């Protein structure tokens, strides 16, 4: 320490605050610019879509059926198809997804098996959607013999979003502190009672949000449905079990590929409808999250 004392007089702090502050301001400027670019891109996108599509967006368009003439074309079958698909997907994915999540996070004995199961789910969620399309094509359309039906499409999308639902639900279940589980068990609850009465209610907001966002995603999916046959020119309302159906994004795609400007415009109008649907679902999710989680502040 004596050597240290010798040099002790010299060292000093030179905070150089002006320089440090300037660096900070520069960084903040760049960051604001970045977000500005993003917001600008979004604004341009919306402006472009709306300016093209809005003039075409009227009651006839919403209630009409596709036509070879843009001014007479409508998207009712696509809207109905999208809604049917998202409802079926929701109905199938919700119980299965939550059940799987509950098993994985509350029941599966901690160990290799459960780790493999979880990793597997995580990886499934990252598999590109076309691959699900291919799988759906092979499994539902061909092997199960469902053909190019809306049901086959819905089942394919269910598989697609199931990992998303499971992961969201697991996250929601994980967010419930262990102390809640122990609290229930310490009162003499069985495991199922604990899950049913303590864990699931506490995780409900997160699970609900996850499901709704997954349904929104299902509405926007295009590629897998291309593979399982939703590309028919559909002028009737789809029956889930009979062939021939379309959905909004597919309709968008179909029109967007036409060289005529008018078709591009009604494509934009259809996009506006899809976006509106998605925004509505997103808003619903936000509201549920805010509502339900207000009472739960660990």
């Amino acid at each position, binding site marked *: 320490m004596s050597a240290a004392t010798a040099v002790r007089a010299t060292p000093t702090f030179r905070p150089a*605050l002006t320089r*440090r*502050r300037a*660096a*900070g301001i520069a*960084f*903040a400027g760049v*960051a604001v*610019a*970045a*977000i500005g670019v*993003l*917001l600008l891109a*979004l604004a*341009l*996108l919306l402006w*472009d879509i709306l300016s093209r599509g809005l003039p075409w967006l009227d009651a006839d368009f919403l209630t009409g059926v596709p036509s070879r003439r843009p001014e007479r074309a409508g998207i009712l079958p696509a809207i109905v198809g999208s809604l049917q698909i998202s409802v079926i997907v929701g109905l199938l994915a919700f119980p*299965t997804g939550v*059940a*799987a999540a509950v*098993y994985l996070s509350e*029941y*599966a004995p901690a160990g290799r098996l459960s780790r493999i*199961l979880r990793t*597997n789910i995580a*990886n*499934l*969620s*990252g*598999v*590109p*959607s*076309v*691959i*699900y399309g*291919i*799988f759906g094509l*092979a*499994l539902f359309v061909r092997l199960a013999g469902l053909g190019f039906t809306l049901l086959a499409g819905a089942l394919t999308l269910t598989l697609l979003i*199931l990992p998303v639902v499971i992961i969201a639900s697991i996250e929601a279940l994980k967010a419930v502190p262990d102390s809640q589980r122990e609290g229930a068990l310490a009162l003499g609850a*069985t495991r*199922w009672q604990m899950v049913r009465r303590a864990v699931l209610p506490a995780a409900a907001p997160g699970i609900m949000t996850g499901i709704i966002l997954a349904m*929104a995603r299902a*509405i*926007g*999916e*295009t*590629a897998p449905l*291309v*593979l399982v046959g939703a590309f028919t020119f559909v002028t009737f309302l789809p029956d889930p079990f009979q062939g021939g159906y379309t959905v909004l*994004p597919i309709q*968008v*795609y179909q029109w*967007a*590929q036409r060289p005529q400007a008018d078709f591009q415009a009604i494509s934009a109008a259809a*996009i506006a409808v899809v*976006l509106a649907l*998605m925004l509505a679902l*997103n808003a619903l999710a*936000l509201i549920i999250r805010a509502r339900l989680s207000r009472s739960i502040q660990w």
Partner: protein
Amino acid sequence: MSAASAAGRPLALSRRRPWTERAAEALLRSAAALGVLTTFGIVAVLAVETVGFFGEVSPLEFFTGTVWSASIKPYAWGILPLAAGTLLVAAIALVVAIPLGLLSAILLAEYASPRVRGVVKPILETIAGIPTIVLGFFALYFLAPNVLQPLLGKDVIGTFSALSGGLVVGLLVTPLIASISEDALRAVPRGMREGAYAMGATRFEVVRSVVVPAALSGIMASIILAMSRAIGETMAVVLAVGTNPQLTLDPTESIQTMTAFIVQISLGDTPQGSVQFKALFAVAAVLFTMTLALNILSNRIVARFRTGYG
């Protein structure tokens, strides 16, 4: 009850496990099994057809050939042009998305007031929710004609280009990076920031020297996930990049990605059992392998990041 036990009656502590318990567990377990079945199904489907494909096309040609021609004879099955196209689009996307996403994340997590964050964050999440077909539309009918061509000249860049596809895919995955990174940044305990402030650090220093390093693994994971997502992205590129598989690194060229090829094939009435149909699966298998590898990597990183601090 212990009075009872003292009198010699059976143990009051014992009870049979109710059947509801066992039934519930069995149901839940079968739901969880579905995930595994899906994976096996995918792998099986891809494997079977891919093996069939390699019965007709040599793997050597598939993996090293530099020409891909699936619909125009002479057929050529070299996947490199598709793979290169895919990677080119992904690279462009990341070049855009990493800075935009990270800066947005930092701005939202560290600088924005709760009110600003409350407004901006849902907007960014909206971008993430935009159907990809819409972004393809945007690339094809706005970005290319109204931005890129005026900027670079019509002779340099056409309607279809890797660049316009890459840019919208970048726009698509930016919220992914922003969102996961922001979560990672915000997961850094407040105490850590205050610790740095208390030593006389400026806000920028707190962010740069403490918060970002602490969240680094989460940030890395988000980037890898974004990359995987960009590689697997389909509809945006189907519309934006064209149908011209070629081995090039020039972003202004029209190209084709693996996903775009898959969609293209499935749109035409390709008979089951044809080489084209099997090629679909072979390409899908490559795509699946690439994204799987990236996902596993990302999950590894996330898992490590979880155990960091309490």
